[in-house]
Every structure is written in C-alpha cells, then in structure tokens.
C-alpha cells in the first residue's frame, strides 16, 4: 500500500501554476525533464525560474517554448554542448529577464528560508556588477566588526514550487536523493514539492543509516509521480548517464528558433512554442 499522494507527471505540471516562482535543480541534481515536457505540453506561461545554481537543457527548453518570464541563476549553459541557445537568444532579444546571481548567493537565499530567517549574510560579491544590478540586495556594516567591514545581506527567497527527479521513493513517500543535498535546500524553501522518480521501492529509505543519510523525509513532499527515464536526456547519478547524442542534437537544433520548433515537434510538443 502506498502511503503518499501519487500523481501523474501531467498532474504535477498542472499543479504548478502559471507565474510560479519555480525551483530548478542543476544538471547533476535530478533534472525533471519529464515534468518539463509536461509543462511545455500544458503551455505553462510566465514561469519565474530560480536555479540552484544553474540550469542546462531544462531552462533552455522552457525559455524556447515561451514558458518563462524571468530566470535567476549563476549560469545557463549546455555545458560541453556549448551555450544555451534559446536562453542566449531570449536574453539578447530582451524577451526574458535574466537576474544574474552567483552560486553561493542562490544557496544562501534559499537557506534563509530554510532556517526561517529574513536574510543571510555572504562574503565576497561586493564590487561586482552582479551586486550593482541587484537592488534587492543590501550592504551593511558588520555589527560585530571593530573597523569598517561592509558585508552583503541577501533576502530570503521562498519558492512557490519545486519539482525534481530522483532515483526512487519508498512506499511511505520518502525520497532517495543521495549526496544531492541541494535538493533538500530547494525543498525546504518551497511551498509545494513535487517529485518524479524512476520507481517506487518496497524497502523504507529510513531502514538503514546509510540509506537514510541520502533520504528526504516524506513530510516535505506534496506529490510523487513515477516517470521512467524521467531525467532523459540528462543523466541520473549512478542510474544512467547523460544521453550525449540527444543533448548534442538538441544543441544543434536549438541554434535557431525554427530548429527548436522542429525539435519540439519531434518530441510531440509541437504546439508548445511561444504564443
């Protein structure tokens, strides 16, 4: 007997409303590609992506398909497959707003919400153009310093929702995330948490200390959908590697808007492009 809220991938996509501030995991961290295709299929609009700390094909596809208003990240890239073409084109055209950040700031702003505090301090960054273009950030004098000691404060960010892909859940709804603790940070800072998994397993994630150490407790999770190969064409650590052929094909196709539209159509997502 499953003791969790079982959903379909389409139901997860429907539960993420247009305009949501959506948490996006990095390429090494369980990219929810099945859910991303479902968001494009349902013609999601106005999404604001918050990447921890970067995105690859997931963000590029959502941007290319017209689902995104703004994106906050330390990087958007296809990695060894080159620049993220739909992202670069959209930013150069001004059709998507990029809020440039830096990895530790993206972590800290979610960790503030994780700890229930309104801000977190962070070293560095002062004097960069990142800081210069972030009026939502503040520099204060360190109250514990003796001399002048400016330090950056970053406000807490609460996500409307996060969705990620994981190797498995157990029948009690606990998720196995392994070393990818940044997924826990995304979850702790999110109002709604949806997870797609390769499979549901009988053994409780909490049964042994080793397994529990890689676990995310069920009480954070609002819904779980089974999606085999749900990270494809991205990889899933220790489960399957990235499909470099498919990623290279995407990188080549997405260089132009027309190529991207053809690629979407080949995926059965032809009607998903920008309205």
């Amino acid at each position: 007997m499953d003791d969790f809220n079982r959903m379909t991938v389409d139901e997860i996509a429907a539960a993420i409303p247009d305009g949501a501030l959506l948490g996006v995991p990095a390429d090494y961290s369980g990219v929810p590609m099945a859910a991303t295709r479902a968001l494009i299929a349902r013609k999601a609009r106005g999404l604001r992506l918050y990447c921890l700390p970067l995105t690859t094909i997931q963000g590029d596809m959502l941007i290319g398909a017209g689902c995104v208003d703004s994106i906050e990240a330390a990087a958007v890239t296809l990695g060894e497959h080159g620049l993220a073409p739909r992202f670069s084109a959209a930013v150069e055209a001004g059709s998507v707003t990029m809020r440039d950040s830096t990895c530790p700031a993206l972590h800290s702003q979610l960790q503030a919400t994780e700890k229930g505090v309104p801000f977190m301090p962070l070293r560095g960054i002062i004097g960069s153009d990142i800081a210069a273009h972030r009026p939502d950030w503040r520099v204060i004098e360190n109250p514990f310093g003796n001399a002048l000691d400016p330090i950056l404060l970053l406000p807490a960010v609460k996500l409307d929702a996060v969705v990620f892909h994981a190797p498995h859940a157990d029948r009690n709804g606990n998720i196995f995330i392994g070393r990818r603790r940044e997924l826990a940070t995304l979850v702790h800072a999110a109002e709604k948490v949806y997870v797609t998994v390769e499979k549901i397993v009988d053994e409780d994630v909490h049964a042994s200390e080793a397994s529990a150490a890689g676990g995310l407790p069920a009480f954070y999770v609002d819904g779980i959908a089974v999606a085999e190969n749900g990270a494809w064409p991205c990889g899933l650590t220790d489960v399957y590697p990235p499909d470099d052929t498919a990623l290279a094909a995407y990188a080549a196709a997405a260089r132009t808007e027309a190529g991207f539209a053809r690629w979407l159509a080949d995926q059965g997502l032809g009607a998903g492009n920008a309205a």
Partner: protein
Amino acid sequence: MTHSPEELLISTLADMLAGDRHVAVGAASPIPGAAALLAQAEARIASGRRMHVSILHSRRHNPFTEGARELFDAAGQGRIDTFFLGGVQIDGQANINLVGIGDYPHLKKRFPGSFGSALMYFAVPRVILFREEHSPRTLVGKVDFVSAPGTSPPEVWRRGGPKALVTNRGVFSFDPAAARFRLESVHNGETPATVAAATGFDFDLAPRVGETPAPSPRRLALLRGEIAPKVAQFYPQFAARVWAIAA
C-alpha cells in the same frame, strides 16, 4: 621529449600548485584538472605528502557530500588553497567577465553567467586565471561586466584573489596593490612584443622575461602514464584529442 601545447599548460599550472593542501577545479576545466592531478602525484612521489584535489566534474574526484553548496562553504572556511577561474573577458585589473559582451543588461552576446566566481575570487587565497585564447578580444582594457573584481578596497573582506594568468602565449603574475599584471614568461615562439600585440591591456614586464619552462621528461612520463588515463575518465574527449587514449 616533445610536448603538446596542452602539456605545456598543464605543466605550467602544476608548478603553481606545489605546496597546496587542497586544490579545487570547477566545471569544464580539463587542463586545470590534469594539472591538479599531476601536482598531487608529484607531491606524493617527492615527500609522501597527500594533496587533496577536488574536481567537480568527476564522480570519482568530487569528495563533497553536502551538495553543491559545500565547495563554497569550504572556500569560505579557508580550506581551498587554489582555485581556477576563466573569463569571456579578463581586463588589466584582473576583473573577469563571464556574463556577456555589450551594454549590460542589453547584451549583444550572452554567455552562461558568473557561476561561483564572485565568492571564490575573494575567499580562495590563490586564484589562477586560465584562458587559452590570448587575444585583444579576451584580454581587454575593461570588461563589459564585472562578474568578480580583481581587487577590492582595503575595508572589504578579501582572503585572496588573482595570483597568475596563464594563456596560450605566456604567464603573468598579478600585483594587487598596483592592480597590474606582469609578464613572467612567454611560451616557445612568443616574445614580449608578440604578447603585447595580442593583449588588450597594458602590463609590466619581469626583469627578465624568459621562456616558459618545458615539462621535464620525467614529468611528461608521469603525465602520460599515470595522469592521462585518470583525466580520460571524466574528460574523455580531451584525453582522446591530446593523448589519443580512450576512457
């Protein structure tokens, strides 16, 4: 023994890592990654000392268990001695730009973004700037966007910063007080004049600008015999191109 241009760069970077306790290498950096593994092997051979090397791109050489924040936390704790950064543009004050070309936010050409540079450049004692392409397009008078500044006012907390810039033409050191690079050596075939012609910013010259030392036969043998197969595991395309080996 002849060496490839990549092997010269690996050797040059490895020299800069001797003595480090912990070297970290970010994404998409096969040459710094190989240099760190080479320096690690040489420290072991020379003195039995263990140098920790963390290569984010590698499952095997990535030691972190608290997720993506742990590298930045460890840097904040002062546990990373050397880190590598690059740049779409690097200017004469060692400011780096990983964001794009043009008048931000109205960029003509958008690049991925700043990654963790805006913290790592402050928190890591020794940051080595590494950019193979050495041209007026990459080494500029002033970057279009400061992902991370090369220097900071004295009141701003800063544990470290740029120590060197290595390109496919030569090796620079950096003086933070003067905020200027100094050419220390040129690679075989280059002169200070050819380097200056390819550089978009003014720089100083060392009293004697020699040729960047070639890797010794012993080092080359170690690199090709022991290090290259390791690199092939996480940068297969690079290893295939440089050493014609498969993972």
